[in-house]
């Protein structure tokens, strides 16, 4: 009989990577790597974190598995690539969990949070918002929305651009973004901060950034989070005042002006008891510990995590119009069957384009993959990791994996 795998939590954020484990004292982060220290490529980053865990925390462990966090809006290709990376790194089994869901689990288990809450995940280059129902033993995502082109990095770029406009000579390349990020953080405790910008001619430009000016610069970027937040609430069938909590996740939520804006948006003071950059890794460790236990009913950590599809799954018909197969918010795993003949022109290509729509804007639909449509029906299955598989349903009812052609 093969020995059961020890499970660890992994969070490969833009700002750095973290490995976490759950023990008698609760979950803890055991390895932390800044982005500048991490190797390139997902598999290498995973191997780097896991090797330290094996050396310092689990020496002699024959099998290691992982629960890894992904942005809720990570598409099917990104999820497949991450699962491949875990296999390359020698982790089995591996499970992907959406970062906001992991954060909700951490707050549920460590802070005793209950009721419907909003999880606002604002990373360096990601933005997800999830409405999550928490009751004893259950974390269920009711709705998820977001914007793939939004994140704290966008705010830094906006501030950097404004500062550049005030400089009397071009600033040193690459310096402004770091200065802008630091100034945003510093303005949490002060009303204005001095900003020293190194210029290409060797001089230092001494500027000041006030809290009011920062809020004016950030307003157009932060205004873009409002639409997805409202959509998530509507999808969940709730109003902001129905929420019992607001959880902030990701480094982008650390500056005070972002926290204030999100708090005003939901009409709730954000919870700040768990560190926004660490909470996801803690949630992964808790979930990993649950998976390690296996099929045990009624245990104190018998928490069920029900994730949901963050973007609708559609196929492109011959007329170029996407037809929705699975709606955003569908509980995972989920499946849908489609009659190929209804979608494709009879004499034309036998290809099925699977697309994920971001919001309702058709121009942002992206073809994720194409499959050879050999049979009359295709079955699309999105598993609990959010990974997509397409099966040809044969005339006798049997199904086999469709050939992916791009």
């Amino acid at each position, binding site marked *: 009989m093969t020995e059961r795998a020890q499970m660890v939590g992994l969070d490969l954020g833009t700002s750095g990577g973290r490995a976490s484990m759950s023990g008698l004292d609760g979950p803890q982060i055991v390895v932390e790597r800044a982005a500048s220290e991490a190797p390139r490529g997902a598999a290498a980053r995973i191997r780097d974190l896991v090797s330290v865990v094996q050396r310092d925390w689990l020496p002699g462990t024959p099998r290691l598995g992982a629960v890894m966090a992904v942005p809720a809006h990570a598409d099917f290709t990104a999820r497949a690539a991450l699962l491949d990376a875990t296999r390359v790194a020698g982790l089995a089994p591996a*499970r992907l969990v959406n970062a906001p869901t992991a954060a909700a689990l951490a707050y549920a288990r460590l802070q005793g949070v209950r009721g419907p809450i909003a999880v606002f995940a604002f990373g360096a280059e990601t933005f997800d918002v999830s409405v999550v129902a928490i009751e004893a033993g259950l974390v269920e995502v009711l709705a998820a929305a977001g914007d793939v082109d939004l994140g704290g990095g966008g705010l830094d770029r906006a501030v950097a651009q404004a500062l550049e406009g005030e400089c009397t000579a071009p600033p040193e390349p690459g310096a402004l973004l770091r200065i802008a990020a630091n100034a945003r953080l510093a303005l949490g405790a002060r009303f204005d901060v001095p900003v020293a910008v190194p210029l290409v001619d060797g001089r230092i430009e001494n500027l000041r950034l006030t809290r009011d000016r920062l809020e004016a610069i950030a307003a157009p970027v932060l205004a873009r989070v409002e639409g997805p937040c409202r*959509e998530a609430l*509507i*999808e969940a069938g709730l109003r902001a005042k129905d929420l019992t909590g607001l959880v902030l996740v990701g480094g982008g939520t650390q500056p005070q002006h972002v926290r204030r804006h999100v708090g005003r948006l939901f009409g709730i003071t954000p919870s700040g008891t768990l560190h926004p950059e660490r909470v996801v890794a803690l949630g992964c460790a808790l979930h990993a510990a649950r998976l390690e236990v296996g*099929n045990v009913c009624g245990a104190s950590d018998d928490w069920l995590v029900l994730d949901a599809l963050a973007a609708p799954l559609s196929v492109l018909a011959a007329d170029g119009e996407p037809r*929705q197969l699975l*709606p955003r918010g569908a*509980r995972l*795993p989920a499946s849908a069957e489609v009659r190929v003949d209804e979608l494709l022109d009879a004499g034309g290509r036998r290809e099925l384009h699977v697309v994920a729509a971001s919001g309702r804007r058709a121009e942002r639909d992206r073809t994720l993959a194409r499959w050879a449509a050999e049979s009359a029906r295709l079955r699309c299955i999105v598993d609990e990791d959010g990974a997509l598989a397409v099966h040809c349903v044969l005339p006798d009812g049997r199904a086999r994996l469709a050939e992916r052609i791009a």
Partner: protein
Amino acid sequence: MPASVCTACGAVQDVDPRADAFALLGVEPLWCLDLDRLRAECAARVRAVHPDRFLAAGGEPLRRARAQTLALNDALRTLTWPRERLRALLARRGCAERVPEAHAARPDVEFRLILRELSAGLVELDGPDAHVERARIQRETRGLQEALMNEAAALAVDLTASLTPIPALLERVAALDAELLEVRR
């Protein structure tokens, strides 16, 4: 314990191919369903068979757990979409094909947003003339809402009792769809 799990040994069973969405979730095949209770019932059944519970075991138990969870989640989605619930009810009588498959059949977010803002506006109206404005909005929407509610109730009775000939029923569904579209405009 649900039928998806062996009562003697706790092993996950294969999905019963004859079970439809109503049977999988253990509810009466009726048009009127308590959706909150349905979601809770689904979560309770999923708890026993979720793949997370069998990830460590792997192999056949994990495959069966995935299939069972998938079937339960798909059944929930079927019964929470009115059109798909109608198809499931008609399928029991062998005539599901009378209702065409409709991808993206759910009311869109924008429509729900308008309805929500309207109802929120009713509650939040304030000031000396609030009652006038409130009455105006209510007058404009009440008639239509009542008509739609009556129609939906009549449809539910017809479906449950199975007394109305199917073509007439479908015509009324189509009319109701058209009326909802009109409300949206």
